[in-house]
C-alpha cells in the first residue's frame, strides 16, 4: 500500500531551507509568543485586581523578570522588522532578486537595536 502523505514536524524542521525558512519559523514563534503574552497579561491584571489569585501574582512576577522581558522584546523587534521585510518584498516583487541582501539587512537592524536595548535593560535591572 502507498505510504500516505504525512509531513511530521521533525521532518519539516530537518528540511534545510536556510535563512528565509528560519526567519519564517521565528516569525511564527514570535507572533504566537506575543499573542500569549498579551492574553496572559490581560488575564493576570484581571486576576490580581478582581480575584487576588496566586496564579495571577505568579504570572506577574514571571513577566516582570529580566529573562522574560528580554525574550518578549526580541519577539517584538524581530517580528516587526521581519514583517516589514515581507511587506516590502510582497509589494514590490521586482526587489525579490535582492532577497538574500534583505535577510542580511534585517539582521543588521535587529541585532544592534536588540543588543543596545538589552544592554540598557540589563544595566537598569542590575542598578535597580
Amino acid at each position, binding site marked *: *500500500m*502507498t*505510504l*500516505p*502523505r504525512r*509531513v511530521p514536524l521533525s*521532518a*519539516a524542521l*530537518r*528540511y*534545510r*531551507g*536556510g535563512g*528565509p*525558512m528560519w526567519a*519564517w519559523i521565528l516569525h511564527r514563534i514570535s507572533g504566537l509568543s506575543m499573542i500569549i503574552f498579551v492574553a496572559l497579561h490581560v488575564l493576570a491584571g484581571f486576576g490580581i485586581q478582581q480575584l487576588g489569585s496566586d496564579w495571577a501574582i505568579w504570572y506577574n512576577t514571571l513577566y516582570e523578570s529580566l529573562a522574560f522581558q528580554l525574550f518578549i522584546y526580541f519577539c517584538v523587534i524581530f517580528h516587526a522588522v521581519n514583517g516589514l521585510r*515581507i511587506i516590502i*518584498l*510582497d509589494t514590490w*516583487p*521586482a526587489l*525579490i*532578486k535582492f*532577497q538574500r541582501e534583505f535577510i542580511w539587512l534585517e539582521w543588521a537592524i535587529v541585532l544592534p537595536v536588540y543588543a543596545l536595548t538589552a544592554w540598557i535593560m540589563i544595566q537598569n535591572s542590575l542598578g535597580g
Partner: protein
Amino acid sequence: MQVTLKIFRYNPETDKKPHYETYTVEAEPTDRVLDLLEKVKGEQDGTLTFRRSCAHGVCGSDAMRINGVNRLACKVLVQDLGTNRITVEPLLGLPTIKDLVVDMEPFFEHYRSVKPYFINNDPPPKKERLQSPEERARFDDTTKCILCGACTTSCPSFWLDDQYVGPAAIVNAHRFIFDSRDQGAEERLKILADQFGVFRCHTIFNCTLACPREIQITRAIGEVRKAIATGRLD
C-alpha cells in the same frame, strides 16, 4: 573515495513502516548522486527503486531530498555536498509509492487546475502570432519549468495543506498569464485568487532555493499576486 549512502526504503509489499538502509560505494568527487544510486541498484541491491529518465537535468524525474534539501539527483555532484555521508529521501508532502518514488498525481492535479495551456479564441492568423522581444521576455523565466516538483514539495504551506496549488502550478500559470498572445489571464487569476491560491504563499523562499532551473519562483508568485490585487498585467 568511499561514500556512505543512507537511503529511505519502503516496500509496500513487505514493509509496514519505512526504514533507512546504509550502503558504502566507491565514488569519484565528480560522480553525481544519481550515479551512486545506479551503483547501489546495479551492484548491491536491485530492489532499490527510484525514478530517472534523461539523467541530464531536463526531464525532472529524479527530484528527491538529498542531505535534507530538494535536488535533482542527476545535477548534484558528490564534491558539491562537502561530505562523504549522503542521506537520500523521497520528496516531502506527497504519498510514497516505493522507496524514493512518490505519487505525483496530486501535484499534476494542481498543475492542470490553472489551465497551463494557450488560450486564444480569435481565428488563427495566416502566419504566426507576432510578439515583440520585450513581450516574450516578460514570461521567459517561467518557461524553464520542468515540473520536477522540487519547489512545491519544499513549500511549508504545501506541507501544511495539500489543497494549496503550490509554486509549480503558479509558475506555469504565470507563463501564460503574462503572455501577450494569451486571452485566459482573467480566468487563471480568478482560480489563483481562491483561498488555496497565491495568497497561501508566505514568502518563505524554499521554492526558489530548491528550483534546479533557478527560476525566480517567489518573484513569479509575487507578480501574480500583484496582478490579482491591481487588476493590471504590467
